[in-house]
């Protein structure tokens, strides 16, 4: 078999968390679009291999949230929703986890296949921040890995976790944000209707939330894509 399917990985994270550093560490020089000094504004794409599997990794724009307040956020969100990466790695800054976790929770509303990377762990140690990743893993229901992308700490564990997730040895039950009773009640009314249209393609709960929030663009995009051709792979759409 030399026609191996490449596995698609997305890197999400707030700005300034060292996402690009991790991207560089993983891909080395195998990048297709150089991201120009530091900040990733365009979607950079790179590749690497591990244990005989080929991976393509996409460096999403750094955003605080996925609630579509800007083009960057829309790009990041649409990629996770429509391009359906096999794994989405959310990179957190160990020194500002509280803020970063917001994005992680939002990603976990969209997809199950999530790995949390706590980056800059050496920096956190210096500042006397102690993170119990086991408890966090319990709470979040997805793998949580401490890394330092620039010092290449924890990269092997990350690669191994990716590998085991792809082979199905790790199953996840991502934490779902609970909303107020009022909102949850509304969701209950909407979600069943959602199933008929989107099926398993998009998390109905997440989509219902977006609709309640007045954002119809996702459903529209979904319908358009569906008409253009059932589930056509559009992996190069973000070249």
């Amino acid at each position, binding site marked *: 078999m030399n026609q191996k399917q490449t596995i698609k990985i997305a890197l999400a994270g707030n700005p300034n968390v060292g996402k690009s550093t991790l991207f560089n560490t993983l891909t080395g020089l195998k990048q297709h679009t150089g991201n120009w000094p530091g900040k990733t504004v365009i979607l950079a794409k790179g590749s690497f291999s591990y244990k005989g599997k080929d991976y393509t990794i996409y460096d999403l724009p750094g955003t*605080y949230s996925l609630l579509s307040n800007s083009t960057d956020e829309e790009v990041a969100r649409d990629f996770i929703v429509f391009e359906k990466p096999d794994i989405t790695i959310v990179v957190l800054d160990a*020194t500002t986890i509280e*803020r970063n976790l917001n994005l992680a929770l939002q990603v976990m509303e969209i997809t199950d296949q999530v790995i949390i990377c706590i980056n800059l762990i050496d920096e956190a140690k210096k500042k006397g921040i102690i993170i119990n990743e086991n408890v966090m893993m319990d709470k979040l229901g997805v793998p949580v890995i401490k890394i330092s992308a620039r010092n290449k700490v924890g990269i092997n564990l990350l690669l191994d976790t990716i590998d085991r997730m792809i082979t199905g040895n790790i199953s996840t039950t991502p934490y779902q944000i609970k909303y107020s009773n009022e909102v949850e009640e509304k969701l209950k009314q909407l979600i069943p209707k959602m199933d008929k249209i989107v099926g398993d393609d998009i998390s109905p709960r997440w989509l219902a939330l977006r609709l309640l929030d007045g954002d119809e663009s996702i459903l529209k995009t979904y319908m358009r894509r569906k008409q253009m051709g059932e589930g056509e792979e559009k992996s190069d759409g973000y070249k």
Partner: protein
Amino acid sequence: MCNNNLISLDQAEIGDCIKIKRLEVTGTMRRRLLDLGFVPSAKVVAVQKSPLGDPIAYEVSQTIIALRKEESSKIFGEVVKNESKTDD
């Protein structure tokens, strides 16, 4: 809660910690501010003025975010403590 205690963020002294009560901003800017952590009940510390006095940097949810007067004057809260004075 007495309304007299509410001040807008731009009126805060450097070092003041303010608990946000309400935002009088609408549209995209409101969404953006919310995303950055300027949510009701969040605590914000005024940390640094730029050399020319505006914008002012605030620490919110572990990050330092600079806001112009146009925005910070529409975020209201109450001073809960002044870090530079005491910590008791």
